[in-house]
């Protein structure tokens, strides 16, 4: 794959008031590759995504997109660079229907007038491709959808557009078996089409199934970013729960000797 990352972050710091959530984070997403971003609950994954998409301003750090330094101050900026995001907290408008949500901010128009039939058709096709079979009507308000249906709408909304970078924050959390498979396949297909894809997930099977690289956050610090082929399942879990695994991750505590045994033990119960 290409050696130049599409998006590169350097030295990102982010605090909420007195709480520092991200510390000197570096991260890169490569075109044509799926980069899995993993980390414990509260590690800072979603915060990092929101910094990338311009929802939160960063306190310090650089963004380099397509080789040029950029500043992203709002989701509009991110969208205009070609960044699409599926947020963990889905951010759908409950008072709008499925079609309206999917095209929000980028409605198809005929002159001044909204082109509803076209949008409805496109929405139907996209949802069909995501194995959604239980939605009664595309004109249903999203407030009446089930958890998985909402998630699907959010995913469909992000993949409708021709973008360069797609970030999915736990996209399959609420999905059924078939739908999950479909989304993972979609993720792979997007990358194969040359897009950069960032996938956040707690499911190691999924991560190893589709990702090319794995980046691990531990308490707001990026402890490793490696090729998926160069790391094992157990090592990733160690990175997530202890912040280091053998050579990888944080430097060993001065007080403890550096053999990775203790942390490995500590997470034994965590691997299902």
């Amino acid at each position: 794959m290409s050696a130049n990352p599409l998006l590169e972050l350097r030295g990102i710091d982010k605090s909420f008031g007195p709480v520092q959530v991200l510390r000197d984070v570096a991260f890169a997403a490569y075109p044509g590759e799926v980069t899995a971003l993993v980390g414990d609950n509260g590690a800072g994954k979603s915060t990092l995504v929101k910094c990338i998409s311009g929802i939160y301003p960063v306190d310090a750090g650089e963004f380099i997109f397509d080789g040029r330094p950029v500043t992203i101050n709002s989701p509009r900026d991110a969208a205009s660079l070609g960044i699409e995001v599926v947020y963990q907290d889905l951010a759908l408008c409950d008072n709008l229907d499925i079609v309206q949500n999917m095209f929000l901010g980028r409605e198809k128009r005929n002159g001044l007038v909204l082109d509803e039939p076209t949008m409805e058709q496109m929405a139907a096709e996209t949802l069909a491709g995501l194995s959604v079979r239980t939605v009664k009507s595309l004109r249903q308000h999203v407030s009446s959808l089930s958890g998985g249906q909402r998630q699907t709408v959010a995913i469909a909304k992000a993949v409708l557009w021709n973008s360069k970078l797609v970030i999915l924050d736990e996209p399959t959390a609420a999905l059924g078996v078939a739908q999950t498979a479909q989304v993972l396949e979609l993720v792979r297909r997007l990358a194969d089409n040359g897009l950069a894809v960032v996938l956040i997930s707690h499911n190691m099977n999924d991560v190893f199934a589709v990702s090319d690289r794995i980046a691990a956050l531990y308490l707001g610090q990026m402890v490793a970013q490696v090729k998926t082929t160069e790391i094992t399942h157990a090592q990733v879990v160690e990175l997530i729960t202890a912040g280091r695994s053998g050579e990888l991750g944080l430097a060993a505590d001065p007080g403890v000797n550096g053999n990775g045994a203790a942390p490995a033990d500590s997470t034994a119960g965590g691997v299902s």
Partner: protein
Amino acid sequence: MSITAVTKEGPAAVAPAPTVGSHVRDYWQRVRGGDIGALPAVAGLLVLCTIFSIMRPSFLTAGNFANLFTQGAAVTLIAMGLVFVLLLGEIDLSAGFASGVCAAVLANLVTVLGYPWYVAVLAALLTGMVIGTTLGFLVAKVGIPSFVVTLAGFLAFQGVVLLLMKEGRNISVREPVVVAIVNRNMPVALGWTLAAIAVAGFAVVQLLRYRSRAARNLINDPFPVVLGRIAALALVLGLAVYVLNLERSLNTLITSLKGVPIVVPIVAVLLVVLTFVLQRTSYGRHIYAVGGNREAARRAGINVDRIRISAFMICSTMAAVGGIVAASRANSVDPNTGGSNVLLYAVGAAVIGGTSLFGGKGRILDAVLGGAVVAVIDNGMGLMGYSSGVKYVVTGVVLLLAASVDALSRRRASATGNR
């Protein structure tokens, strides 16, 4: 892969193409489920009208019907603008006095300075736009809650009216065109023509939409339902124009009085235009989105600040229209124009019609229906001859009754989880 095969038909295929019967059944189910749109407001209106007609037969005269329109026009127009602001979950307390300021500008220009009416009307509208933009800026960019900004506006504009009125004088408006807006009627033939054009236009839009959806094989209302809708509009419009075209002079020896008051087509056109803006343009879609979930709208790349500012602008511009109508009706502008109960009535009209104060839910038609409820109550109470105290109490109670028709019919809605 067979999953894709299963779903190829797509969600659209889940529901079979509706027939007239299933459409009616669906509608009834929706009503029973509490999703009833304008029905309760209309029902409340009918109940009110029936009661008043029984108690005071003069309520049901052509003359009173015409009065209803001219009495309710100003509040309804202001309420129509307020819908935009309410849809965002904001409030504009200053809309009443903003209409007063605009009316004062109009009166000063036509009467004191002698400008032609169109200059004055334009200036009044412009004043409204400037006021709205300022309010919107303070809310969206500076970040002061709209309640506080517009409370400040409520106070300040009250002062501005006084200053424009040279500390309390009222100014007559005798400019014939301005006066005509509320006080003159269209020729009988013109009324019929406009009604016919409106029905024809509606029919064309409905049929085109039907065709385009049918062509793409999307779920469509059954054709007879579309026809029925057109017929219903024709019936309502025809009836209204017919009644307004009846002779309603109190003394035909002195004068003849018939025709649709000029303000009616003005309200109707604004109703159509603003409804179009809200329902059929992406701007309107964005208003709903910002009101429903501001953060989601921001993440979707909508320029939330611009939407908010523009909504305030529209609101104050509509307030200006309301002010012009009020000036026309009173033939004068005084420091109280737009004051007293105007604001509460206007917000009340929008809310009674079904607009939510929390944003995201409401239509322009709500404001018109709610405005009609308010106007009918005011009109009917005026015929009862109560003393002031009793009149206030009864008005309050009647308002409550009209609203509880709505509330009770929506009760099922929350029981079934819709809201």
